């Protein structure tokens, strides 16, 4: 029983980790309607920035989020402005997906060039210490990630529902042409949203860096899993991505123990396929336009 509780706890913590990566991905997809395959590399860039800042200035890695998240916002905004926006009028929307795949490869190889294949270790500053909840061991860093993921989801929901900008963002997502007629600058909204999505993963990277060794390829695994979470929760749904991530974290941990570590990915991706076949809109998904081209 203790082992089972520990596995469940591990699964939830892993889910929190996936969630903080998935939230930005689903935000960008829901509004800009672009699947950002470079999202994992944004995470990787954020983790290297956290590593450089926290070792260079000798500060707690969490404090670097104040610089890393804005830096990632700029990276995301530039990606939208310089890479995606010129392709938005392309006849085939899939071109943008290939563009983000290209960006992903470019960023990964750039990191290989700059940092080499060796891992970089962000100092833990105590976040690797354990807390015991009964018989269950959890790292304080994992709790922070989990808490931050919840706060992020709530904050984004409030922003989207209560603020003028948030309403403009949702309007653009619902119908780009109508939003433009209402005087909304849709290009600016897209740039802003892409930046926000990247800033979310920037915040996540400062929290994740002290827990995991940073390497140029760290993003590839995260982005694949985050993508599954987003599909499970319903593409574009922010709370959906969070709960999708928790489910995937639990499935990953339980199957890793009860079925075998070599098959856990098979289990996760089987679920992914089943959702696509049985409920393509996901757990929280509603029928929505999945294109930035107005109907």
């Amino acid at each position, binding site marked *: 029983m203790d*082992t089972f509780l*520990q*596995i469940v706890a*591990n699964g939830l913590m*892993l889910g929190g*980790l996936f969630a903080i990566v998935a939230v930005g991905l689903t935000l960008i997809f829901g509004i800009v309607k672009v699947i950002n395959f470079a999202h994992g590399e944004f995470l990787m860039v954020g983790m290297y920035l956290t590593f450089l800042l926290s070792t260079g200035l000798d500060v707690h890695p969490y404090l670097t989020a104040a610089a890393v998240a804005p830096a990632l916002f700029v990276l995301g905004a530039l990606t939208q402005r310089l890479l995606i926006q010129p392709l938005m009028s392309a006849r085939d929307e899939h071109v943008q997906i290939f563009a983000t795949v290209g960006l992903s490869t470019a960023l990964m190889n750039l990191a*290989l060039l700059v940092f*080499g*294949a*060796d*891992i970089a*270790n962000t100092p833990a500053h105590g976040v*690797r210490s*354990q807390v015991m909840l009964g018989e269950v*061991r959890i*790292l304080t860093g994992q709790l922070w990630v989990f808490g931050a993921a919840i706060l992020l989801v709530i904050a984004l929901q409030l922003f989207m529902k209560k603020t003028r900008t948030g309403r403009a963002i949702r309007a653009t997502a619902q119908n780009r042409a109508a939003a433009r007629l209402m005087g909304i600058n849709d290009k600016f909204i897209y740039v802003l949203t892409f930046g926000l999505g990247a800033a979310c993963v920037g915040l996540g990277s400062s929290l994740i860096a002290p827990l*995991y*060794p940073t*390497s140029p*390829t*760290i993003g*590839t*695994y*995260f982005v694949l*899993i985050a993508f599954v979470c987003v599909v499970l929760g319903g593409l574009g749904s922010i709370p959906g991505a969070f709960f999708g991530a928790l489910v995937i974290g639990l499935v*990953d*941990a*339980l*199957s*890793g*123990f009860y079925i*075998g*570590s*070599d098959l*856990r*990915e098979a289990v996760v991706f089987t679920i992914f396929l089943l959702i696509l076949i049985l409920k393509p809109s996901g757990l929280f998904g509603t029928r929505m336009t999945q294109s930035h081209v107005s109907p």
Partner: protein
Amino acid sequence: MTLKTLLTATAVSALLAGAAQADVKFGALYPFSGGLALLGEESFRGVELAVEEINAAGGIQGEQIELVRGDAVDNNQAIGEARRLISREGVKAILGTYSSSRSIAASQVAELSGIPYFELGAVADEVTGRNLQYLFRTNPTAETMGIMSIDMILDEIAPGLGVEASDLVIGVIHEDSAYGTSVAGHQEEYGAEKGLNIVTVQGYPSSTVDMSSLVLDLKDRGVNIVLQTSYQNDSVLFLNQSAEAGFEPDAIIGGGGGYSLTATEEAVGELMEGVLDVDFTQYAVNTEFTPGLEAFLAAYQDKYGEDPRSGHSLNNYVGAMAVLEGIDAGEGFEPDQIVAAVKAIDIPSGETAAGYGVHFGEQNQNDRAMMMGMQWQGGKLVTVYPRDAAVAEFQIGD
């Protein structure tokens, strides 16, 4: 900077001058660009040093050697470059290749052309497993690694813990590419042959971000010896998550990759203390068992102005020296004359700079090739097994 440039220029012109008088050409096929370039280049340096040493001592069969480089950046180019070396450059043999997949591709070309191919660094079983006539391998393999880790349990760990080897509960975990899978396969097979109790063999993708379930599974099964064949990320993850789950096996034996690198040790700190590792011969080794190692290090520093970045250069140097000296003792450079010459090579263990002997046995694999057992002690990776090569005591138990 200017001094360095001047030195480089001198070295290059010396090399060109040497090339001008060259009489016999050998190909050096390595990945010199692309993702594997760092260790490909490191491997090549070993061959380069061997050739310089031999040329300085009068060459082979009285003729100077010219090394012609071929860049095996991927499998296709490995094939193309092997063709170029053979038909355009007219090399008498090819030395290489660091990467197993490049080696398998390029040696096929050499075999068809009837040109001897000497593999000095690739570890996959298939390299020699294809029964090629002109392919010889000097370095230890995935099988050597698997067997060595089991031997360490039998010879040192079980006696050190004061238990029968068959009473130990052993878990084998590995990253699931060809490398980890083949090492783990040999561990399982050879372990079973020796009557060891291997309770689980589990693969995982090396890019994984969570190994906590695997750790709990090992803990649940009461595993006290873990064998892990891994890269860097997964080594760090396993050691960290084991500590976090309170899983404390009596011994962890890593296989190459991540466990030999200082960056891994820096990542996990004191968790690395006492961890064992099986890999190619490194530099903290008993030099009585590895005669020529100090001279190699001195020549290396002299030529490249830095310490070797890994053990690859040493192993390639040892392989190249053995092969070239073997050819020197033979007659002529025709393929069959070279094959006859290298088949006569008979260097006992403890007489090369890497410690292992050279003798081509079944499938033209060097049947004296071996790896070393090492242990992290006080933040340093020191050789502890076999005892002849050890520089420190094998530490096990309390």
